[in-house]
């Protein structure tokens, strides 16, 4: 366990303490798990209004091609990711994956074309490995700048557009996955219309020394409440989004994880830039032949939450384990327990019954379509 003294602090650390947050170590940072409102109300507030999340622990990385042409940086990045980066238009962002030679996932991230450079946001726990991975593959042709001390705030929920537009009117014109440089109270910030809650909203990248001031400004709006990592987890679970380290890791492939949509046709067999990324043989073979297991939604039949680590069985008694729950808990908006996990491909059809072992009892769950709560992205 991390001891508090060893933990890093984000630019909003003193604000969290001032707001009465319950803090805990997460990916090496002392982070707010919940504020006084509590996980349940924070979750519901985000879906009904607007929530402000400190995600400054995540890693922000800029990549500039030595040639000056952003397409060269994109093509270089494609040697370590299976997604189509080169066709990403200026001002647009998409979901990305880093793979290993076995086809497993080393991390998931967001990548934006900022016109003259690429802007990546990677997971906190993976950011140093990701930086090393990018440097190893790209440093001959690109300049790589880690901005690990920079602030990053997510503003999520139906009121997010109105709140941010009151400071930066152009935020209103952005669509889901648009990225632009805007100004809030005189501070230039990089804004993407995205997030990880299933709600419409924004992520706002801010110079470290201005992050506290901007966060307080946004929180001064009556619609906005501070939201901790507890509700962030239940929101993303209801939205059917993967948590790296739980739902996806170095042993799960993009096809198994049901992330085929993240690998565009141009990188698949028959595409103009097919393959050419770590584990391409394994992953592209699974595109053609299917994977033996798949990530699915799991809807417990009863009221008891089914959590990560619960072992799955095909029958209520006897038989071998068929899979594992990778995320699970109570979904405040779903109004009951929700979970995700891996099952054999033959049992992945929605409606299929499986049983999760919880405290010695096998609880019935139905394979369910994801997300549990419809997304409200502004497309």
């Amino acid at each position, binding site marked *: 366990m991390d001891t508090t003294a060893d933990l890093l602090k984000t630019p909003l650390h003193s604000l969290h303490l001032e707001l009465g947050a319950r803090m805990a170590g997460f990916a090496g940072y002392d982070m707010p*798990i*919940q504020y006084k409102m*509590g*996980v*349940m*109300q924070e*979750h519901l507030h985000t879906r009904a209004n607007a929530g402000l999340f400190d995600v400054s622990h995540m890693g922000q990385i800029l990549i500039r091609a030595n040639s000056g042409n952003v397409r060269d940086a994109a093509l270089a990045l494609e040697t370590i990711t299976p997604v189509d980066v080169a066709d990403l238009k200026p001002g647009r962002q998409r979901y990305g994956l880093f793979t290993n030679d076995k086809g497993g996932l080393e991390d998931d991230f967001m990548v934006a074309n900022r016109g003259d450079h690429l802007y990546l946001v990677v997971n906190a726990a993976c950011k140093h490995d990701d930086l090393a991975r990018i440097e190893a593959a790209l440093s001959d042709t690109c300049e790589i700048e880690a901005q690990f001390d920079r602030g990053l705030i997510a503003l999520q929920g139906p009121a997010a557009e109105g709140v941010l537009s009151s400071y930066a009117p152009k935020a209103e014109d952005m669509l889901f996955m648009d990225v632009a440089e805007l100004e809030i109270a005189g501070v230039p910030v990089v804004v993407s219309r995205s997030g990880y809650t299933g709600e419409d909203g924004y992520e706002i990248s801010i110079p470290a020394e201005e992050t506290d001031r901007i966060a307080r400004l946004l929180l001064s709006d009556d619609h906005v409440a501070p939201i901790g990592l*507890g*509700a962030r*987890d*239940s929101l993303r679970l209801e939205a059917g989004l993967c948590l790296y380290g739980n739902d996806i890791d170095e042993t799960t492939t993009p096809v198994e994880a049901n992330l085929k949509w993240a690998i565009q046709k141009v990188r698949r067999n028959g595409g103009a830039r097919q393959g050419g990324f770590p584990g391409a043989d394994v992953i592209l073979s699974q595109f053609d032949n299917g994977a033996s297991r798949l990530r699915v939604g799991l809807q417990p039949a009863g*009221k*008891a*939450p089914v*959590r990560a680590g619960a072992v799955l069985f095909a029958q209520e008694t006897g038989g071998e384990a068929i899979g594992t729950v990778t995320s699970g*808990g*109570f979904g*405040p908006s779903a109004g009951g*327990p929700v979970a995700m996990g891996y099952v054999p491909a033959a049992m992945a059809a929605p409606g299929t019954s499986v049983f999760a072992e919880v*405290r010695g009892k096998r609880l019935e769950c139905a394979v369910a379509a994801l997300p549990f709560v419809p997304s409200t992205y502004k497309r």
Partner: protein
Amino acid sequence: MLKFTEDHEWLKIEGDVATVGITEHAAEQLGDLVFVELPEVGAKLDKGGEASTVESVKAASDVYCPLAGEVTEVNQAIADDPSLVNSDPTGAGWFFKLKLDDAAAADDLMDEAAYKAMIG
């Protein structure tokens, strides 16, 4: 007679029957409860044994049996509506009644002043 445990349970002892619940401090630390699993009526429980499970949005926690005895009644109302434990932990949010094997064993538990001193 009201007694408390280090695991944040309270016991209201009348004769050889104890009504058991979790303290206000415990309910606040756990946050909004979404699921409660109660013991079976007739179950014989040891002191310190797992008696019940409570779950918040984030996590599951055990409620331990504060003294040895037999469960004579459970509060189905908190299984139907776990939020009762948060709104009234020492009243309507009680968990179960226990016929104590040895009522005198309760003397070793903390009184309210000692419990309050423990949680600070």
